[in-house]
């Protein structure tokens, strides 16, 4: 542990911070008339370096740094790579879709990068105060980004809503941290895990855990803490939503995994039924609400609530199989969701002249490639085999079934049948011939630039890889699960129980 300099433990965060500072300072020193687009490329380059730095961290031995506050392990690296990938796609997407004359472009890129710092730090933190700080770093940048379109009424509305509700949620989290500190006398996660078993103030710990769960479940927009999601997604610029609906959620899920599996495995009997209920609520509420939406972004917002529910189903799994399934689902969800918001950005445009499902009518005729990509991501969101969405659901629900929660899996899969309705509505609208009468749909095909094409290819490639050869990612997820010090209740996963070959 001493052999690794502390600085290496936070290398990706460091790279991102330096990039953010560089972008922000350059932005303020450049003459106002100069275009800021290059800064976006700088940010993307910095994120790429952070991505590579995360991969490089694989060569480090697992351990903590900075007096046991941050950790590098297969788990943190998995999420670092994921978050950096998402941020990279979001940056590439913004590069081509932000209007050239939009205000404060430099700040926009810097904020995205600073947000990434917070998210990465959140996944690596093993000390509750660092967790809180990281959460705030990521939240504050996303609050600002959500309100980036100041010229429309919806932008500030989204930002204020997100900020107020988000502050409440973080306050809950902080209160939970305080109670846990009161009960155990420490904020270090391993220490808490050790002391929680024998702590005398058991009710403090229970209350603390419950309050922390409220804060975290707000961030992942699980029902009943989801009400902010549709409004924020509708008001925020689409490239920001691509980021907002994936990266902070991935980080928050990492935190949730850490809290329940690493900090309080002993309280499995408490949080497991709670998460069961939240999972069922999220998928049902999300899907039922999405059915009635005409606005594509609102529909996808509710769909993301439902996906949070599918992901939470994995928490019913036993030990490492549940963690691995949750990690995998996060990756699959991120790939397809960032992709579909990329398409939405291109189709609707920055100013969102075409926000409704009906506006997508005939997309495949106007823009064949973009239309096909949209349908591909929707197919993945439905969960059709050979796409990432399928294996995500597959692992999540098989973990649930392995953990004995058969009903959860049945409810989840029936929900995904329900969800197919609205995804299909959009997909088929895109496939259907547009009626020429409507002048609105007679717009020309969206322009697809180099950066955004690269972003789309990245997302399509990731979704396909996760759907056809998920082996490598799954191995990484399993390594992540093992490194998270699975609870003692871990029984061998049924997969290794019997070798199907030997029975033939």
């Amino acid at each position, binding site marked *: 542990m001493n052999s690794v300099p502390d600085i290496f433990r936070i290398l990706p965060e460091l790279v991102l911070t330096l990039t953010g500072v560089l972008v922000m300072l350059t932005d303020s020193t450049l003459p106002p008339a100069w275009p800021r687009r290059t800064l976006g490329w700088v940010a993307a380059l910095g994120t790429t370096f952070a991505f590579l730095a995360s991969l490089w961290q694989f060569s480090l031995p697992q351990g903590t740094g900075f007096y046991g506050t941050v950790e590098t392990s297969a788990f943190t690296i998995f999420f670092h790579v994921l978050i950096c990938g998402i941020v990279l796609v979001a940056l590439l997407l913004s590069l081509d879709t932000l209007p050239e004359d939009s205000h404060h472009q430099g700040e926009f890129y810097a904020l995205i990068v600073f947000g990434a710092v917070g998210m990465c730090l959140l996944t690596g933190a093993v000390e509750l105060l660092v967790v809180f700080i990281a959460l705030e770093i990521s939240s504050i940048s996303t609050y600002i980004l959500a309100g980036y379109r100041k010229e429309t009424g919806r932008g500030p509305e989204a930002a204020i809503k997100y900020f107020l509700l988000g502050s409440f949620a973080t306050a809950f989290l902080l209160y939970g941290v305080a109670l846990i500190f009161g009960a155990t006398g420490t904020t270090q996660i391993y220490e808490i895990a050790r002391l929680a078993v024998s702590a005398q103030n058991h009710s403090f710990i229970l209350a603390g855990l419950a309050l922390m769960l409220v804060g975290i479940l707000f961030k992942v927009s699980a029902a009943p803490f989801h009400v902010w999601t549709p409004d924020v997604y509708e008001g925020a610029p689409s490239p920001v939503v691509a980021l907002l609906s994936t990266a902070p959620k991935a980080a928050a899920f990492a935190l949730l995994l850490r809290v329940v599996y690493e900090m309080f495995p002993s309280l499995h009997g408490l949080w497991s039924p709670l998460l069961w209920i939240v999972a069922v609520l999220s998928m049902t509420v999300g899907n039922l609400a999405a059915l009635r939406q005409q606005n594509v972004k609102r529909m996808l917002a509710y769909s993301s609530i439902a996906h949070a529910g599918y992901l939470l189903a994995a928490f019913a799994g036993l030990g490492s199989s549940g963690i691995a399934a949750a990690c995998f689902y996060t990756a699959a969800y991120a790939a397809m969701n960032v992709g579909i918001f990329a398409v939405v950005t291109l189709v609707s445009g920055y100013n969102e002249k075409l926000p409704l499902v009906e506006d997508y009518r005939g997309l*495949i*005729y106007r823009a*064949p490639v973009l239309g*096909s990509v949209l*349908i591909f991501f929707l*197919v993945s969101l*439905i969960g*059709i*085999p*050979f796409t990432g969405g*399928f294996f995500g659901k*597959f*692992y999540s*629900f*098989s973990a649930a*079934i*392995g953990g004995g929660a*058969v009903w959860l*899996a*049945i409810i989840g*899969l*029936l929900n*995904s*049948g*329900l969800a*197919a*309705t609205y995804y*299909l*509505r959009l*997909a*088929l*609208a895109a*496939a*259907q*011939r547009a009626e020429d009468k409507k002048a609105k749909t007679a717009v020309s095909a969206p322009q697809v630039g180099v950066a955004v094409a690269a972003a789309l290819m990245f997302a399509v490639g990731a979704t396909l890889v996760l759907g056809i*050869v*998920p*082996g490598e990612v*799954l*191995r990484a997820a*399993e390594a992540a699960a093992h490194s998270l010090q699975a609870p003692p209740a871990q029984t061998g*996963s*049924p*997969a*290794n*129980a*019997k*070798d*199907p*070959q030997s*029975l*033939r």
Partner: protein
Amino acid sequence: MTAMNDSILTLILLLPLAGAVLVALAPDRAKLPNWIALATALATFGLTLHLPAHFILGQGGFQFEVNRPWIENPAIFYHVGVDGLSLWLVVLTGLLAPIGVIASWNAIQSRRKVFYSLFLVQQTAMVGVFISLDLMLYYGFWELSLVPMAILIAMYGRKDGRKAAIKFFLFTFIPSAPLLVAILWLYAQTGSFDFATLRILIAHGNFPAGPMLWIAFAFLLAFAVKVPVFPLHGWLADTFTEAPVALAMVVAGKLGLYSMLRFHIGLFPAQARAAAPYLIALAVVGILYGACLALVQRDFWRLLAFAALSHLSLITLGIYGFTFTGTAGAVYQILNHGVVDAALFVLLGALYDRYAASEIAAYGGLASKLPQTATLFVIGSLAMIGLPMLGSFVGEFLILSSTFTGVSKGWAIAASMGVILGAAYMLWLVQRLFYGPENAQTASAPAADLDGRELATLWPLAVLMLVMGVAPSLWLPPIEQGVRPPQLKQSAVLPENLLLLPSMPNSSPGEVQR
């Protein structure tokens, strides 16, 4: 030849996919997508013919088998193979692909690239369903087969394609949710998705009976919707009305029926036997209900849909009668129905292309103007009715006679009534379309009889119906073997890898040969 035998199924599976990619990448110039699709489909069909040519009769189990690990955890294998049950179904799928391409040649005018690439993806999915021996792999192809179908129905629907597509998709997608849960539950219990492994484990009775009943029911439900079995046929008429001809002719029947045989009866013989009385009753209701509704339809697509419901119910009756003869007849009838339905769809599609009307009342007296169409349509209708010398007769006879001797005389008589009604609605349809006074609507329209392209698809089908009718012994031996593996002839003890399990009524194998 062993290298070929090892890779043939993979080739059949991947060639259409490669064709789809090629179509998608090639420029959309003139008929280029059509030609690529046709070449791919013909090549695939050629490859499928390798299977019956090198299928070894008398060798039990699966042939051309490939079993490679695909994903480590969960243990999903790329495990494919065919036996007598699936052999001809793969060939049928191969045959219908070029026919589908040719039938769409002029009918599909816009976005040919999308159409033909999705059409070829659909081929891959269907072949995948027939050859997969790993439940997850199977499930993958099963679900995949929905997507191109739904998109193409929406894109090329005649009136309200989107509604029909959503109806089709939801009807078939929602029941596959319990199917997936059932598969995952089996995996959680056994650690295997492998068909053969699971069959042995289930045959040994290692599972609690209560959950198994639900698991088997989940399998059955998913398949019954896809067939469709009465009362789950709600999607069929709309899909037949809206879907492009090339897809409508493959959407119903074979996928669901094959899955019932392989995965419902094959994996859960005891539970399937318990469900059989209900399914027999539903099948007979379906036969009569479908036939009665077909009689009163005003639109020929809908008529064909209810006729299909009636005929597919008859096949279901054969499957769940649990006799060797009936099952063999049912498999044979799946093939016949596939061929006959394809021919009728091509013919009605040809009429629709010419007159843009699907109301039967818009037609009349076409026989003098379109003699070739009329001739082929009569042949197709007679085959559908089950005239001796044509394929369906053999299948229907095997099913009905085995029901009569092995199941119940009452059900057999009721089912035979459906066959009589079938003659009524088909012949009445022929009469209304081709004979009688000329209809003003169609008399004024320019009439061109079938062109060389259409004839090139229809005559082979007509010949095939005849060959299947007069020489069933060409086709039946592998099917019988799939239904009753050769080991059974020698030993009285039932080996584990049997499709059908204990207490089989004694209908002699000679009966099939006649």
